[in-house]
């Protein structure tokens, strides 16, 4: 594994093995460069928060981790991203399998216009994770329980997922992502469309999910980053400015820009 290019940003080290390793990742939209060489590691079973002002590239970076940027015609990615030591931009790699291993939860809750049950079984069906009805039932129950939604919807699994409240919809999307048993879950501002109570719900959930998954979360809310993450990465204008233990970043940032941002002077 290519770990020789560790920068000063990379000092904070977990006892866990590295799950995702990004080296000199540059992203271009047409001629415009959105990321200028990002180096960061995500450790197994940790929550890494990506913070920074709007347009700083944190969402772009998150989307490179499961190649969601492939859907944008003009987007081009350079550098290396390793998942368990395997280059995910290797042309021989099947992007479909990658996305089964690296799930994603989006900013706006986006349940499919299908029943709650079908929303959860969508992924497992695609990947052939189950064949019999009782196996699917079990996946649905387990996933919904993990997303803390089971008790609220267990009596109406056949109703459309779009009929749930915003917070419930987002937890349904988390359950949907969990149902394919990914190794990494990427969350792109998962609470930005939710009220404070639903947000608290999801934050608790993220903390529980950490036991089984590796999580990277983009957030605009610094309190949220402080509450849910173990480590935090601060992006600014396409650069990864600083990454370290969350507590340290928030109490004792080394970079002036980080300090400016977390104390609210800009952003």
């Amino acid at each position: 594994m290519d770990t020789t290019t560790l920068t000063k940003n990379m000092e904070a080290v977990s006892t866990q093995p590295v799950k995702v390793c990004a080296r000199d990742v540059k992203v271009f939209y047409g001629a415009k460069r959105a990321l200028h060489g990002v180096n960061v590691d995500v450790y197994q079973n940790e929550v890494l928060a990506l913070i920074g002002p709007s347009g700083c590239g944190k969402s772009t970076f998150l989307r490179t981790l499961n190649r969601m940027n492939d859907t944008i015609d003009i987007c081009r990615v350079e550098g290396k991203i390793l998942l368990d030591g395997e280059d995910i931009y290797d042309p021989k790699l099947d992007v479909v399998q990658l996305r089964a291993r690296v799930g994603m939860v989006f900013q706006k809750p986006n349940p499919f216009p299908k029943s709650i049950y079908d929303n959860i079984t969508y992924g497992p069906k695609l990947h052939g994770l189950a064949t019999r009805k009782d196996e699917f039932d079990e996946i649905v129950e387990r996933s919904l329980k993990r997303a803390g939604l089971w008790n609220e919807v267990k009596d109406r699994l056949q109703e459309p997922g779009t009929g749930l409240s915003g917070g419930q919809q987002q937890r349904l999307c988390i359950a949907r992502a969990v149902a394919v048993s990914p190794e990494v879950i990427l969350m792109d501002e998962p609470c930005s469309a939710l009220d404070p109570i639903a947000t608290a719900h999801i934050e608790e959930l993220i903390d529980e999910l950490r036991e089984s998954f590796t999580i990277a979360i983009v957030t605009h809310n610094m309190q949220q980053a402080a509450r849910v993450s173990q480590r935090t990465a601060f992006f600014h204008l396409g650069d990864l400015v600083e990454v370290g233990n969350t507590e340290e970043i928030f109490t004792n940032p080394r970079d002036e820009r980080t300090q400016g941002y977390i104390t609210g002077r800009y952003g």
Partner: protein
Amino acid sequence: MSATFTVGLLLLLSLVGYVMGRSRAVTVAGGSIATLHSVPNYYGSYVALWAGLPALVLMLFWMALRGPVMDWLVLDGLSQQQIQGWAQVMLPPNDLQNLLSNIADETAALTETHRQLLLINIKNLAGGQALYVNPAVVESIQPAADHLRNLRNLSDWTLFGAVAAISGGALAFCWARISPTFRARNNVERVVTWLLILCSTIAVFTTIGIVLSLLFESIRFFTKVPLTEFLFGLHWSPQTAIRADQVGSSGSFGAIPLFTGTLLIAFIAMVVAAPVGLMSAIYLSEYAPRRVRSLVKPVLEILAGVPTVVYGFFAILTVAPFIRDLGAVFGIPISSQSALAAGVVMGVMIVPFVSSLADDVINAVPQSLRDGSLGLGATKSETIKQVVIPAALPGIVGALLLAVSRAIGETMIVVMAAGLQAYLTLNPLESVTTVTVQIKSILVGDQEFDSAKTLSVFALGLMLFIVTLVLNVVALRIVQKYREKYD
């Protein structure tokens, strides 16, 4: 004094009104325009509108009423001797006998048809076209023609005077009202609002008018042919006897063969258009690179712009012979006016319609749904099949229904490529006819307007109107409901 002069006068007065109103506004402002309630142009427009519009309305009413009123005055002025003199030359013996026996009681002297004939003679004579009038009747109706000429002159002069008076009066009145506090802008804008309302109601009234005329003429038809025979009859042969001694033209008006023919061709068209249109929409909206899309979309739209008559001769000169020859290879006899040829070409015509509507609804499916599916490890085609199409389905159904209503109402292609004989068959290799083809073929040429044959056109039109209306309403409802879901 012709009406052209009157219109010219009206325009002139409006223009003068504008200039006068504007300059008076500037004058009363006394050098500082800012003291005026509105900018000077509004004062000009105010005077111009009032100088023009009321007189224009009067003119339109006058034009509409002058014909009937003059007809009545001219006929009223004819003496019984004059009418008899005309009738002895122009009417066949039977009708003349009737007239002479009726003429005593004054009221029902002339039948409507004869009245029209008499009027046409008088008008031709009055208009200097004596060539078209039987010289033998000139003596009888010359006084009436002179009378008409005088009336026309009088009417034109009166109208000219009235328009000049109203327009000029309004001009003077409005001009005098102009003062710095006068709210010309509000006044002008109110008039403009009414003009806009008037324009928007024209479409509504036209629709109502068309529906009512279809309805009343259809009712006339149904007094001659029972509704049940029309709706459930299996034989369509609209040739009715013109003379009593004619043979073989009894006329039967069972519209079922027309409906099945129409539906058969529309069905074949949809079999072609639905898959081709949908798949090209899916390719264009989901797979096509931007450059291909920017090339193919305009071409598809050009296809939509091809006149249907071009499709028509394409159908009859290229596709129909090809299908017939193809059938000959397999030993199947195929009519050269087969439903298949007309349907296939109509399908090609509808392809751009379907693909462009379907493209719209597929694009309206939010990107976040696609991302969600792709993020779960679905491939592009799985995403399209299981998320995008189901989400867009109501809109797609709506698009297809609109396409069906287009196929049903399409005329030119079937006129050229489908047959005229109303066979009751579901075999696409045979010749069938459609509702629109029958409407066209019945109305082409000279027709008496009170025969069942001619009136049947209105019943067919009404049926067509109802079917397409229902289809359109249902389709628009579905599309609308779908739009709301993602807004």
